[in-house]
Each structure stands twice: as structure tokens, then as C-alpha cells.
């Protein structure tokens, strides 16, 4: 079967039309498509989308909060911003520990939002070398989303970025690989607000859930050492400061950690010594918010309820002003919550 010249031209035109149509469709879908499928999990993906959405609206923020889901659930950045007359974002990374914070802050948050100050929420759990989150570090730094966002110096990395700048289809192609997420994003749209309104999880306050209390000490706090995590947070602080970002450590509200759930006080000493080492090495300012929140305002003994978040944010604003005035360590008002434990 011979193809005539006209047919060849028509076929070529048809092929180009198909590719152009796909590019137009990708451009139309792009604002509604999240980065689903390119990051290790949905929570990181949502956080990344929120930060990129915010970066389109503001050139830089004054304060970026970082840490794990405990930080995410402890601080309402919008309330904080309005009370301190700053711009603030809660850029915490659910499921993270200290080793993940460096790459996330230095290669994602800082280039996107150029914060003046980064407040890192910390807890003894983040310093545990044996945390269950260690595997997440490798997953994060090898994920397509991270590699695409950071400087992948390979030839393919350059090629990818060059095409990504010009083609929406190339930009969104990783998201298109998860069809169910695409359908979800197109029907509901992504949340582009960095700090969406606080919502309680279904089931509400689970502060008295003993199963939660039983589970974590066994799996996360076993054979506690704090060597690599301490090094990681020192590196993260130094990396941030080298980029002109000032850093504050925020000790997060705590109920049972190292006090009740752990048999013995040895690990508390290991953690406190590690934190002291960090402060000595970096000279970083610390805000101590451990004893601020009553049990009833904890959702699950780690994360706060919306009421707890509001309380803690309000208390933080007061401490923030003291910290801004140059105090090396600021203790937020204590409610002696540790005495409330049954």
C-alpha cells in the first residue's frame, strides 16, 4: 500500500495536531493537577503543592515553620502572621525526622519562599536514630518530585528542566501517571492554601486513646541513640544560616514523651544532652513550649486539636516577641500539664 504525498502531509499534520492538543489539554489541567505521584506520599505532595501555590503569590515569607506532623498540627501560621504582623507559612513535613529536614528546607522551602527565619519544631522523637521515619529520607531524596525540584545535574536533569519550562505536558506528566489522583484532582481541585483551616479528623479528640500510647514507645523509642539525627539537625541549621536564614528551635508541647511512657529517665538525658550539643555548636535560639497544652487539647497524645493549635499559637506569639528581642532561650507559660497525667 503506497502512501501518497498528500496523505503523508496529512498524517504529519494529524500527528502534530494530536501532540498540540495534548499540550493544550495539559495547560488547561495544570492548575488543577497536584504533584500527586511524584512525592513519596500524599501528605508531602499536598504540602509541596501548598508551598508552590504560595510562592506564586508572595516573593518571600518572614517565618517558615518546619518539623514533623507535630509542628504541622501545633501552629496556625495565619493566626501567627496576623498577630505578629509578619508573613508566615507552616512548611512542616508530615512523617519527617531531623535527617529529612535539611534536604526539605534547604532544597525545597528556601528556594521557593526565601524565608528570613525558619522555626524548627522539635521533639525527642525527631532525635531518635532508630525512628521509623529513617527509610522515608531515602524515599524523599530519590523521589521524582524532589529530583525535579532540586538541581539534578545530570544531562537528563538539565534536559528535563529545559523541556519543563516550555511544556505543560512535560511538567504535569508525572502526575498523569496516577490516574485515580488525576480524576480526584480534576473533580475536587487541589488545596493551594498553605495553611488551610484547621479540621479535626473523623473521630475527633482521641486524647485518651491508650493504644496510641502503648504502640509508640515500643516501636520508636527502643534503644534510643541520638547521633546521626543530632548531626543532621546541626547540618540543617548551618546550611540554612549559610543561606542567610536565621533559625530558631521550638520545643513542642509534650504530654508523655520521656516522662511517662518511657520506663526510666536515661533516654531523656540522652535527648537533652543532644539538644544541648546542638545549641552549643550552632548558638541557635530555643523557645520551650513543652509544658503549654493541657491533655484535653491533644488529639492523640502527640498532635494537638484545633483548640490546642489555637492555644499554642497564641502562646507562641508572646514568646516570639521575647525571642525577637534577642533572648537565647524563651520558655512559654507553663500550665503544668505534666502533672495532669493520670
Amino acid at each position, binding site marked *: 500500500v503506497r502512501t501518497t504525498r498528500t496523505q503523508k502531509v496529512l*498524517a504529519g499534520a*494529524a*500527528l502534530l495536531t494530536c*501532540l498540540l492538543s495534548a499540550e493544550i489539554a495539559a495547560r488547561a489541567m495544570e492548575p488543577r493537577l497536584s504533584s500527586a*505521584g511524584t512525592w513519596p506520599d500524599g501528605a508531602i505532595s499536598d504540602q509541596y503543592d501548598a508551598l508552590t501555590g504560595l510562592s506564586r503569590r508572595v516573593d518571600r515569607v518572614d517565618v517558615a515553620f518546619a518539623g514533623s506532623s507535630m509542628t504541622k498540627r501545633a501552629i496556625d501560621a495565619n493566626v501567627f502572621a496576623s498577630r505578629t504582623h509578619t508573613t508566615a507559612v507552616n512548611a512542616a513535613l508530615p512523617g519527617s525526622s531531623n535527617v529529612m529536614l535539611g534536604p526539605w528546607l534547604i532544597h525545597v522551602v528556601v528556594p521557593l519562599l526565601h524565608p528570613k527565619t525558619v522555626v524548627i519544631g522539635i521533639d525527642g522523637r525527631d532525635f531518635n536514630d532508630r525512628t521509623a521515619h529513617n527509610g522515608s529520607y531515602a524515599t524523599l531524596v530519590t523521589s521524582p518530585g524532589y529530583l525535579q525540584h532540586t538541581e539534578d545535574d545530570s544531562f*537528563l536533569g538539565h534536559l528535563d528542566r529545559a523541556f519543563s519550562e516550555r511544556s505543560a505536558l*512535560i511538567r504535569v*506528566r508525572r502526575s498523569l501517571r496516577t490516574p*485515580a*489522583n488525576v480524576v480526584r484532582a480534576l473533580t475536587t481541585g487541589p488545596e493551594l492554601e498553605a495553611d488551610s483551616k484547621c479540621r479535626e479528623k473523623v473521630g475527633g479528640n482521641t486524647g485518651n486513646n491508650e493504644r496510641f500510647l502503648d504502640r509508640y514507645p515500643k516501636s520508636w523509642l527502643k534503644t534510643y541513640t541520638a547521633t546521626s539525627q543530632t548531626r543532621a539537625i546541626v547540618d540543617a541549621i548551618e546550611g540554612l544560616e549559610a543561606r542567610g536564614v536565621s533559625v530558631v528551635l521550638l520545643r513542642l508541647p509534650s504530654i508523655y514523651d520521656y516522662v511517662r511512657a518511657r520506663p526510666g529517665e536515661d533516654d531523656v538525658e540522652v535527648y537533652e544532652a543532644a539538644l544541648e550539643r546542638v545549641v552549643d555548636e550552632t548558638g541557635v535560639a530555643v523557645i520551650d513550649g513543652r509544658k503549654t497544652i493541657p491533655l484535653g487539647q491533644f488529639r492523640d497524645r502527640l498532635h494537638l486539636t484545633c483548640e490546642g493549635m489555637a492555644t499554642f499559637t497564641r502562646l507562641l506569639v508572646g514568646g516570639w516577641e521575647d525571642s525577637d528581642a534577642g533572648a537565647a532561650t524563651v520558655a512559654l507559660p507553663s500550665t503544668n500539664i505534666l502533672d495532669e497525667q493520670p
Partner: protein
Amino acid sequence: MTFNSIQYALFAPAVLLLYRRLPFRAQNVMLLIVSYIFYGWWNWIFLGLLMFSTVIDFVVAKRIHDSDDDRVRKRWLVAAISVQIGILAFFKYAGFFAESANAALQRLGLEGNIHVLRILLPVGISFYTFHTISYTFDVYRRRMEPTDNFVDFALFVAFFPQLVAGPIARARMLLPQLARPRRNPSSVQYQSAIALILFGLFKKVALADAVAPVVDTMFAAKTPTLLTTVIGAWGFAVQIYADFSGYTDIARGTSRLFGIELMRNFEQPYLSRNITEFWRTWHISLSTWLRDYLYIPLGGNQGGRFATYRNLFITMLLGGLWHGAALTFIVWGGIHGVLLAAHRAFRPRASLAAMLPEIRWRDAVKIFVTFNVVSLAWIFFRAQSIGEALDVTSGIFRLSSAGATADSMIIVFGALAIVFLTDIAQRNIGALRVVVTMHPLVRAGAYAAMILAILIWSGGTARPFIYFQF
């Protein structure tokens, strides 16, 4: 340098441009040099091994041909095969057998302290070893004359499109093509070559690599369920077929651009109505090699029913072992050996049809059953250990959908549907006819769809072709 890499996308057209500008003899020399460069890209140290294998069989085949004494001829054949199999065994199986022997000794209460060698496996060694053995064997059987031209022979062994993962070329088919001047491909050949390369890339990037992470997740499920096992097994069936046939399509398409035809390696294997038909259509270059150089020398079907079953079983067992030094491959080969023997026992005439039949609705049940049996066997091929294979298989008995996501189902079932639909079209219309008889606008649409799918699934670290490890 893999077929799905940027390097190859630059390498192949550059070689083709140069090739077109050279006279015939210089073309072969140039192809040999670039084939060695292509091979040396992985590990240049193993180039010496490839050249050594080439020289051995080139010399031995001539000695066999020059002698009229059957004993001398046989001695040379045994010597050549011993050297080739010896090299293969050393690099591929020495560690496995030493480990197995140590484990066996320890079970007997003895101290198993045989030194286990950890050697890097030379890429493509299983394939080029079989190339050279088939040449020497065919010369021994007087089915062909040995070539006097070392460059032609070396190119037959090392021709880059088929060097690392086949098809396992037969000297009788490939050497004559290398020995005579080749005409430039016609426009239809060009079209079909480009279509083959594009379709092969599509299968590798948009089907095999798309399904691979889902399969990895399903095989890693802590508590396999019916759905994770089905998605894992079907997913791997798609992955290995799309991966390997994709590689073969790119190899055949690239080779066709040089005016050289390589043999077909797949004939829509998942449309098989029984296990015998499956092995007539799956990895054809290996299955026919095993038939010609192992099954028939073992006696084939000439020694009675039991001997036939035994020969089938041994052939498939060794076929499994050829894939890799692991118990899982041996069990996979054994399963197929048993299935082939059982099919032969119950349906002795089922494999005699010369032509592969068009697909009809009435074949659906047989195809479904065969596909599922083959998919179950793939679990052993894919698993890292027999324990893992049994664990994954046990999921069949847990009636639950836990562990499977909507995306995993969409990706695997979608890829499976594409595989079946394209295979049915190729079987019922004809592979080449599908391309050249298609209306140009429809063809353009199909090409655009494949290009888009490749774009969407490309990027990041390219997964190597599965058969590169063999």
C-alpha cells in the same frame, strides 16, 4: 547504553548515517567496531571474553569442517562446547552451586566451606554463548558451511542490536545476510522499522516501566491477598512481556534500518490456548534453540512417551536454569516442564497445527486459563526466593482487596487490555499489515498516542531491560 536511553537515541542514528556512507565491506568492519563500543560501554573488560568466545568457535568450526573423521569432528565439537559452557558456568553458576553445596553440607551436619566466588556477570553472556554454540553445532551437523571471513563471523556474534538480549540469532539465517551486500531498505521496510522501534519503546517505557512499581509493591505486600496476588502476577506477566518484546522490537527495527532481518521472538504468546502453543510463541529464539540443540539431541519424542516427557522436563528445567542461577528459575522451568509433559500426555496432537490460529470468541476460556497458569508460574520467576513465591501465591486464598489501590488496578488492567488488543490485531490482521494498511490518519493518531504515552512515562532513572541480567 540501553535502548531506552538518550545515549542510544544519539548512538543509533549516528551509526546509521555513517553506515550509509560506506561500501559493503567497510560497513561490516564499522558495524563490528561500533558493536564492540556498544558492548564495552557496560564493561570494556568483558570485551576480551566476547572476542575469546568468537575466536574459539571461528577456529573450531573450521577444524570440524576440514575433518572427515567423525571422532575428530566430535572431539572438536565437545571441546568448543565445553569451553563455552565452562565460561558461562564459571561466571553465571559457580557462586550458586558453591552456595547450594555449602547449604547441603550444612544440612548434613558437615562444615560447608566451599569458597563462594562473587563475580560480575558479563552482560549478554548467555545470549552470545548460545549464538556461537549454534554455529559450531550446525557446522558439525553439516547444516552449513563455516565462514572464512572472521569479520562477518565476529559481527554475527556481536551485532549490537541483538548482542545483549537476543533474539538468539542462528548463523544460518544471519551470516548469509552479513556476507552479501545489502540493499537499502524500501520505504515500507523503513516504515515498519520505525513502527517497530516506536512500538518497542512504547511497550518498554509506557507499559513495562509503568507496571513495574505496582508489581514491586504487590510482591512486597506483607499480607498478600487475592487482589494483590492477581495484580502482582498479571502485572508481572505484562511487565516481562512488554519489556522483553519491547527490547526485541527495538532490536529488530534497528537492525532492519541496516538492511538486516532478525528473527521474530514473540508471536502474541498470551493469546495461546494451551501451554504448548505458549512455548511456540514465547521467546521463540530460545525455545527453538532448546528444541534443536537440547531436546532433539536428548532424543526428542523418538524414545517413547516416557522418554518424551522426561526430555521435555529436562529441557525446560535447563531452560529455567539458563535464565539465572537461582532455585526460583529452576522451579519455574520445572513447572513449565511438567505442564508441557502433561499437555503432551492428554492432548498429543494439540501442538501439530502449523499456523497460529486467528483469535475467536470461542477461544476466550482457553486463553484465559492458559494466561493464568502462565502468570502463576511467573510468580516464581519474579520472586527473590521460593519462600517469597509461596507467600505471594498464598494470597489467592485470602479473599480480600486489601493492599490494592485504584491506581494499581487501573495501571495493570489498562496495560493488560492494551497488550491483548494489540496482540489480537497483530494476530488477526498481521503485524506488518497493521502498520502499512492502516489509513495514514489513523496511523498518525496511533503514533501520537504512543509518543504521548512515552513522554508521560519517561524521565528519571531508566529501568534496565529485565533480560539484560540473563
